């Protein structure tokens, strides 16, 4: 991937600090610096920005709204924020949803109308919303669209038995009969992770306490609570060692994001949030091969995103991170894979005053589990925080890391590097 650093390296390697055209012209370093800067700016203009984001729901149940109404509300807000007319301006719509969560086969049939996308370029991914962002990013980079819209939602309150649906995600012959609804897979992964990284129960309880408390400052969190570490450790087991309070409870909601090319973005909003890098990856889904205590999907996705963004040392690059915590231990596992924590929860690495504070939003433990929308939910949290910091001219928050995971039994996840500079 071409970026400014790469071009600089290329020019300096080719010409040295002083450009020489034959014997006639010797160009000063100041000139080369300017040239490099100009080319860099041109290349940076190849960037993709988030120019609008809207949401609806964020509640354990939304009986007054259908999923279509949730989408309509979120989309209307996102479009209004950047003055976009979906019928004319948008070149691509990407929806992220799974048939069985929707209770409808070929669920993309029901996607277009409430987004204003009928007879438009719309497609569906059976993936997390952050994968949708990656797809919209590629649509803009490949010239398919200069403005793209990404949507994902959760209407889990409509699902009578979420555990039965999860059971259908397991391999039918060998895994489903013994692994019930997949929760035992999470419990086994947790046990293995605790063992390999010498993580104590208290460390995981600390994640619960931190995220539930952080959520108290977030209007979107349905499950925030003033929970102490001791209280978190008294929660009953759902499957030893996994405790009920360590599992993100279900919630309804929808997030719609509008992405644009650099050229468009600057005229659409005063506060573009740039997608500096994006990556996604899947490890094997088979429970029998998921024996590693490392979140390989997050590690590889981060590697891809960091390479695009030119991030060398994530531990010092990012100002904050939104990291998947569908199960409390996952926050630690993911932070480790993303290179922003040194297995130091007990040293306070994930607390608000840490070098890279994690889940200041309250995370899934406070916001709830919005299944495929979770990546976009985290994107929303990061975008809002970056914009608020900019509005208040506080210098601390300029670069954010967003990560998502598709949940048990998958080993699929995505990573986005955001920045306002």
């Amino acid at each position: 991937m071409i970026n400014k650093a790469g071009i600089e390296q290329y020019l300096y390697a080719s010409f040295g600090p002083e450009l020489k055209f034959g014997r006639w012209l010797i160009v000063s370093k100041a000139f080369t610096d300017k040239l490099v800067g100009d080319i860099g700016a041109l290349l940076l203009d190849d960037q993709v920005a988030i120019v609008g984001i809207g949401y609806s729901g964020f509640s354990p149940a939304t009986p007054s709204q259908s999923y279509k109404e949730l989408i309509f509300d979120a989309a209307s807000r996102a479009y209004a924020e950047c003055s976009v007319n979906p019928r004319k301006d948008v070149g691509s719509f990407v929806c992220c949803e799974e048939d069985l969560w929707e209770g409808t086969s070929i669920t993309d049939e029901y996607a277009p109308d409430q987004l204003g996308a009928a007879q438009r370029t719309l497609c569906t991914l059976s993936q997390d919303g952050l994968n949708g962002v990656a797809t919209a990013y590629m649509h803009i980079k490949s010239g398919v669209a200069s403005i793209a819209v990404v949507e994902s939602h959760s209407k889990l309150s409509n699902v009578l038995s979420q555990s039965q649906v999860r059971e259908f995600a397991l391999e039918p012959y060998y895994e489903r009969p013994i692994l019930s609804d997949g929760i035992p897979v999470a419990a086994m992964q947790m046990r293995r992770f605790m063992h390999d990284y010498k993580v104590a129960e208290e460390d995981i309880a600390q994640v619960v306490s931190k995220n539930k408390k952080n959520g108290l400052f977030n209007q979107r969190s349905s499950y925030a609570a003033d929970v102490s570490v001791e209280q978190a450790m008294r929660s009953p087991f759902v499957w030893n060692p996994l405790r009920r309070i360590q599992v993100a409870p279900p919630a309804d909601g929808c997030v719609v994001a509008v992405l644009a090319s650099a050229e468009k973005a600057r005229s659409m909003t005063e506060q573009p949030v740039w997608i500096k890098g994006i990556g996604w990856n899947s490890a094997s889904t088979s429970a029998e091969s998921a024996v590693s205590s490392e979140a390989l999907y997050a590690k590889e996705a981060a590697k891809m995103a960091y390479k695009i963004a030119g991030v060398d040392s994530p531990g010092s690059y990012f100002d904050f991170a939104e990291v998947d915590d569908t199960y409390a231990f996952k926050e630690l596992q993911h932070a480790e894979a993303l290179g922003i924590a040194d297995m130091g929860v007990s040293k306070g690495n994930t607390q608000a005053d840490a070098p890279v504070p994690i889940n200041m939003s309250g995370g899934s433990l406070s916001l709830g589990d919005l299944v495929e929308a979770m990546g976009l939910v985290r994107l929303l949290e990061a975008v809002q925080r970056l914009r608020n910091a900019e509005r208040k001219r506080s210098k601390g928050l300029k670069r954010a890391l967003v990560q998502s995971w598709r949940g048990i039994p998958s080993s699929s996840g995505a990573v986005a590097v955001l920045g306002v500079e």
Partner: protein
Amino acid sequence: MRKVAVIGAGMTKFRHRMLETGRELSFEASRAALDSARMDIKNVDSVVLGSAPDAFDGLHMKGEYLLDGAGGSGKPYTRVYVGGGTGVFIPAAAWWHVASGVSDVVLAVGEEKMSPLQPHPQYAFWSIFDQFLERPLGVTLLWIFSLEMRRYMSVYGIKEEDIALVAVKNKGNAMDHPSAQLPMRITVDDVMKSEPICTPVKRLDVSPTSDGAAALVLASEDVARKYTDDPVWITGVGWNVDTTFWTNRDLCYPEYVEKAAMMAYKMAGISNPRKEIDFAEVYDPFDYKELHHMEGLQLAKRGEAPKMTREGITQRDGDLPINPSGGLLGVGNPIAAAGVMKVAELFWQLRGEAGRRQVKKPVHRGLAQAWGDLMQVGTVVIMER
């Protein structure tokens, strides 16, 4: 936008019931495509997979289940999904991975295993309808196809015999396809006398339910030139989705197919498709659909596709061969895999590797199209050599 080439294609046999699991089918097709590109999975940067309803297999997150078989493990992996249109959409998705500069080599896999659903895969289609307004009617896909077929016939004054000619041609073409499920030499009379399923749709008007998989390898220009002297280029992709409310539109003409085609034609710089497209793989799950889609693609004027068929223009040795592979009616219809099979046929025809299926005239530019959802999605890929 970078140039994107197709450098390999492969597929499994299409059959009513395959003994292989979905993972195994995906593996076989992927392996065949990589072999034909003389590549290994380690050369692949990312994987795109498509498969239609999860309900066929009784699986949730089917894309995750199929991941290992399709070579997606340890790679950026994406499952795209636009109903029946998915097959032709998979290469379009692989195209934007390469065109955007994100990947250099992409494996595009289409898989479908319809047979696990008992007593008949058609039952999965009940759950594609609206929960409140349509499902209580116990509706099946065949109902809405019979509505559409009847509307098409009545607006343009087309006879059932005209439509039957498509089934005769495609099932005949499939006689030369080694993977074909329903190759047959039949007559118009056979089609007319076959059992009515939902009048006017008869048994031989319909493609079968199938298991199978197909795969393609796409690459950027510099990689493609390293691996082959004979790359085939993807020069246009297009897709479009119409409103959910299918009852509100005139079923005689697929506007969404027209819009998808226009997107692809614009990208490929085509202004007169009837003259500039040499042959096409048009989506034909039902025989009338081939005619309907030819008109949507601007390859025939409205209501005139049956005339072109009657005059033999759409035969393999005709001026505009349509479905030289044998199409879904002859080769079979494992939904997402069937669309990839169509794009693979473009690849083989353009390279002159289609053997006995090779069309008579020299071909430089072909088009593949699929359709899906509630008569709602059009997906188009244009390839050139």
